């Protein structure tokens, strides 16, 4: 397979369908009519969801900054929205032996990402392929993480590679990522390359070990590796943190101040 620039994602087909079918999902969805709109309605369940729906949180970084758990996938849809692309890595049947024969279910691996520092991985087993794919897209959105990018050498232009050597492990598979100079491209096997493209990393050298044939472990090891990029303490972070108020505190304090005076005035007016 020839090297591809990271901008073109998934235009080759591994038999899993091209970008065209997925690209206008938004349009196709909305054309469906009345019943669709009713089902697209989102009533938030968590406090964070209510803040996001009201538009009080403008970017996902505010959520990551305070390590707030994201419990609703609609939050990600609202904040990242149309920039988010997804791809099914693999659909494999898993079987369970029962007295009446074998029961087969399908396991789908889906990677979502916006190509600019956010990537998520979802795994779902279900009796039908379609259900597994849809479910894993939702789980992938719930597991979106920020990816830290840095420089190989001179700090010119935008960050393009991992900031340092990081390694991730899952099962027997370990994946190691090493910073690469610009123009090197993603030097990796087909599976982690897909994940790294979604993450928005342009150049990186990788090395893997273990039974990489098990795609589940391989892709999870890569994901774990990306998770660690923001966990690595570099000298940039030595400066003391200036703590900012979390969105929960910020928006409740705002409302608390002016109204209490109004209430007291009302009662005394009687």
């Amino acid at each position, binding site marked *: 397979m020839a090297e591809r620039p990271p901008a073109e994602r998934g235009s080759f087909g591994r038999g899993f369908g091209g970008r065209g079918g997925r690209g206008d999902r938004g349009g196709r*969805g909305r054309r469906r009519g009345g019943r669709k709109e009713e*089902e697209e309605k989102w*009533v938030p369940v968590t*406090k964070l969801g*209510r803040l996001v729906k009201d538009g009080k949180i403008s970017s996902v970084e505010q959520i990551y900054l305070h*390590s707030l758990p994201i419990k609703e996938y609609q939050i990600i849809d609202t904040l990242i929205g149309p920039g988010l692309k997804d791809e099914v890595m693999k659909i494999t049947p898993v079987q369970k032996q029962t007295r009446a024969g074998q029961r087969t279910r399908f396991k789908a691996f889906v990677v979502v990402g916006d190509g600019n520092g956010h990537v998520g991985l*979802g795994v779902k087993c279900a009796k039908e392929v379609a259900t597994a794919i849809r479910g894993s897209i939702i789980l992938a959105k*719930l597991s979106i993480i920020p990816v830290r990018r840095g420089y190989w050498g001179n700090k010119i232009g935008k960050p393009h590679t991992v900031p340092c050597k990081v390694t991730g492990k899952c099962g027997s598979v370990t994946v190691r990522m090493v910073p690469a100079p610009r123009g090197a491209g993603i030097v990796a096997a087909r599976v982690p390359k897909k994940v790294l493209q979604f993450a928005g990393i342009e150049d990186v050298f990788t090395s893997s070990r273990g039974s990489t044939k098990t795609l589940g472990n391989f892709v999870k090891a890569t994901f774990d590796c990306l998770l660690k990029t923001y966990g690595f303490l570099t000298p940039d972070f030595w400066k003391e943190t200036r703590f900012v108020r979390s969105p929960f505190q910020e928006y409740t304090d705002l409302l608390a101040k002016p109204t*209490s005076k109004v209430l007291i005035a009302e009662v005394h007016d009687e």
Partner: protein
Amino acid sequence: MGGGGGGVLLGMPGPWADDNREPSDFYTSKIGGLPDWPFPVENLAPNLLICGTCGSKLCLVSQVYAPISSGTSNIEDRTILVFGCIIPNCGNTPLSWRALRVQKVDSERESSVSAEEEVPSTPPVPVSKANWLDDDSDEDIDLEALSKALSEAGTMASHSKKKDGNQRSESAVKNSTLVARTGVDMEMPGKSLIHSNQVVPCFYMYTQEPSSKDIVSSVCSNYSELFIKEKQNCDYNDDEMGDAGEQEVYEYDKALSADRTYLKFKKQLDAYPDQCFRHLYGGKPLLATAELGDPGNCKLCGGFRHFEMQLMPQLISFLLEGADDCQKIVLENWNWMTLVVYTCPKSCSNKLDRGKSTNSGWIVAEEAVLVQFEKTLQESIHTGYFS
């Protein structure tokens, strides 16, 4: 969880009330507003409506008409009321929530109640006093005499002073805030005046049975059928299945910050994003986190309590739509995921209550409400995707 949970009833939001304090019927299901007591509210023990954490008056959060028509018992007049505390920093402890079951006891007791029928006629009397601006002591004395007259008719003498305070506030609450203030002052002078006449915004509800088809289709609705067919047509069997590498095994659903229990909870909510409560008498609750407290035993008969209904967090979003600023502070602070109400399976009533016949045949029993909160930051720290 197939088939819509097997007979569960969902409460869907209906129209807003024109006024948050408008009275409706004992048989109406609604969120917020004022409770519709079927008996004069001065007969209610006042400690039932006091917050366990901060001591202020609880506000009605939901009133659900829940008759039972199962084999042994057939109780038509039965309602579950859930009360919550609306002091801004007090909504997030389990003690700030209370559930009451109001039901009519057996009708054979009604014959002894006939002497009490003049009790409901007394509320109109204090309304004329609502516009007085005099100090409280005068009104106290008059109502003391009134209540003594009532107690001669057989009501409990011990409730007299507090009953009258509540009676005035309930009947004249629309007229002026002054009346509500005096009602509260009689019990707790010097208490904050700000929240004495607050009510939660009110809207009515209707019930609906879920259909199992909807649950699956809602998950699928966002994705084009054509896209899915593309995936299915591709050859997913070409992966190396037959060789000796590690085989993929079944994995339970997992996300970074959501475990299997929560994902099942969310799936049911997404099927009907409007649901405000779920009612399944004697069924299993839909939990958001796997741990749940113990509901304890019924206070009247000592028997084990079973699940009856639970309130869902979508109602907070709906209430926020209709709330004014001061109510919004309280509503935004609420971070519960679900309120699970456990009731006595026999819907028992105290024998003493039947003898008293103070409430014209109605009894009020306290039931258990367990709260499941959103996990705070400290509790939900995760070490990695695989932990």
